[in-house]
């Protein structure tokens, strides 16, 4: 029986953006990754409108994390002190297509390390792996403004994704990312209007819209994932309706958030299932949820979670 055709009057699509630069484009990356491009809602219309395959960026920390649950640090136990070896392991063993270098160690209360440290870690990781990098600050405005510009400079020409800039703190990082030819992450606290506002602020400084990726504070499964979910769906619909200030690909911080959940980290909760499997499952489940709402880049941590999500992505995109 004929089924009525569903025709949507979408006029826009999510921007396509390339991460990484090979030697031909002035960088040293062996591979590049393209994200974004969706021209419909998730599973809407036909798969030719689905855009690029969502991609997983594996987190590497600049300094040994001291608050990771044992089941999370276990797969990385031999490399936690060496970001370069850590990144290499992610690429060689866990198939990372992007490395997200997270500078927790520069935070005043998590090590307070300086620019020299951050710059040398950046250089080492660029040297150790050929995939594109995400360079992500610590969240403390003062330290980020002091150090991330130097990190940006150290990776000049590599077409990294750098962030984050917020409504209250965007000028210095936006300017340097522009100068060094990187892509930029704009951040908002689960608020679609603020998200748009930060994009406008960056654009006002001359930052190209098609080089921006948006980040709304991610909620883990069971801890507010539905807020991130609906903001992503609304952002996708805005992009499809032609709103240029909302047409950016979306990045989610899945690993960090999922592993804060009790279901992921408590060791003595047999009712919730096996402790060694719960964490990776919670991380994968959070990622899968966000994929249904149109996530383009997922920051993840546990290799088992990553492999579950990769299998899913490969089946759907």
């Amino acid at each position: 029986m004929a089924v009525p055709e569903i025709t949507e009057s979408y006029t826009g699509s999510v921007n396509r953006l390339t991460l990484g630069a090979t030697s031909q484009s002035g960088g040293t990356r062996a591979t590049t990754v393209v994200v974004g491009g969706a021209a419909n809602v998730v599973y809407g219309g036909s798969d030719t409108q689905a855009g690029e395959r969502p991609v997983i960026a594996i987190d590497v920390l600049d300094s040994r994390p001291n608050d990771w649950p044992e089941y999370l640090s276990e797969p990385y136990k031999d490399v936690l002190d060496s970001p370069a070896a850590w990144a290499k392991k992610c690429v060689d063993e866990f198939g990372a297509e992007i490395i997200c270098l997270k500078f927790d160690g520069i935070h005043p209360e998590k090590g307070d390390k300086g620019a020299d440290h951050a710059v040398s870690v950046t250089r080492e990781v660029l040297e150790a792996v050929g995939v594109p990098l995400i360079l992500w600050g610590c969240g403390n405005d003062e330290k980020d403004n002091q150090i991330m510009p130097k990190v940006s400079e150290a990776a000049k020409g590599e077409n990294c994704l750098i962030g984050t800039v917020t409504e209250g703190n965007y000028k210095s990082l936006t300017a340097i990312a522009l100068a060094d030819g990187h892509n930029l992450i704009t951040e908002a606290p689960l608020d679609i209007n603020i998200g748009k506002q930060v994009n406008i602020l960056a654009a006002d400084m001359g930052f190209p819209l098609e080089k921006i990726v948006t980040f709304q504070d991610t909620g883990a499964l069971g801890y507010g994932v539905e807020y991130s979910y609906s903001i992503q769906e609304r952002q996708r619909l805005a992009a499809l309706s032609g709103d240029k200030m909302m047409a950016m690909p979306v990045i989610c911080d899945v690993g960090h958030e999922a592993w804060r959940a009790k279901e992921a980290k408590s060791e003595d909760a047999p009712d919730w299932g096996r402790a060694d499997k719960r964490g990776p499952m919670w991380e994968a489940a959070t990622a899968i949820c966000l994929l249904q709402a149109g996530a383009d880049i997922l920051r993840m941590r546990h290799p088992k979670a990553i492999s579950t999500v990769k299998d899913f992505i490969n089946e759907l995109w």
Partner: protein
Amino acid sequence: MALTGLEIFKLLPKSNCKKCGKPTCLAFAMALAQKKAKLEECPEASEEAKSALAEASAPPISLVKFGTGDNEVHIGQETVMFRHEEKFYNPTVIAVSISDKLADDALKERIDAVNSLQFERVGTHLQVGAVAVINDSGSPDTFASAAGTVKKASPLAMILVSESPDALGAATAKVADVRPLLASAASDTAEAVAKIGKENNCPVVAQADSVEGLAELTGKIKAAGVEEIVLSLKARSLKDELYGLSRIRAAALKKTFRPLGYPTVSFVLDGNGEAQAAKGISLICKYSSIVVVESVERHAILPMLTAVMNIFTDPQKPVQVEAKVYRVGEPGSDSPILMTTNFSLTYYTVESDAEASRVPCYILVVDTEGTSVLTAYSGDKLNEKIVAEAMKKNEVDGLVRHHKLIIPGYVAVMSGKLEEETGWEIAVGPRESSMLPKYLQEVA
């Protein structure tokens, strides 16, 4: 699709007899269209008008119920494509399969395992909603006997899964009183299965390998007298199924296409627990009313149930936790006491970070109508009077000896007034909850 006033007017007698209490038929038609009147108020309406109106006012995706008593499940009645538009209505039912190849002790064990898939998390009880008995054996007798055993040993709503009308008939004869969902009728078995459904008052699953095939099949089943129908798209891949489910939902909601205006069921019976959970969650988000899985691993089932809970919450209503004093670990009279708001996201973040500190403490949750710290403060839902009131109501005086309250860094400005109001010492905690572990370890 709802009819307009004029369309309704055409169906009325146009006699303006006023028995309905309205001056004219047209006025009554307008009232009906705005749902301010009911058709029964017009004694003159023809049967034809009644059925046309009933048809037009039926929900775009119909309600289907199966199971009985406390374990009756309701599916369907969805009205939107996206949860931010309006609350998704009937939460997806997670069902677990039981093969009829299992016998005796193995069968009992499996039933127990399914029954025990109940969880407590953040003060909410979560559980799987149905069992799906699967006719792997191919034998109607074996299937019927397994269904009988499941009925005795499990209170959960039941789905009978077989391609054979004979097997469905034999099993239904044993368990019709618990109103199982019969899965499935295909195009060549539609009449036979619909007959079993009609005679036993059981809903029927229509299964086809294309959306077009499903639209055709539901017509046949409906013509055979079964109103409660569930759609099963037997796609080649998960991808085809998810795209198909989106198409079905859009056709039902945007085009009011009745042949697809039914709830849906999906089967995820292959792969390890993690893979099943991953697929299950995508189906929960994207329009399956029932997801049948094979895994009974608790770590795989809990995230699916949690996803159902999250996706089906009301987006208009901020999720709140009860405003009271919560205990993290086993705090005593010297333990720190922190204050935060009753917006669930705020509370769980604070709770999780307090827990990470391994410092036992109290968290005083103040009712700010489900808003976060900053929003509450700027909306005057969080001020010294409200906090003082909450402290009094929860008798925090009696909890701790030290009379020192830790408030969120974002509302440092209220510490002076709060000190005056309560006579307590006010300590300003960190702005970001993630800094709590360090902070607590230092103050403790």
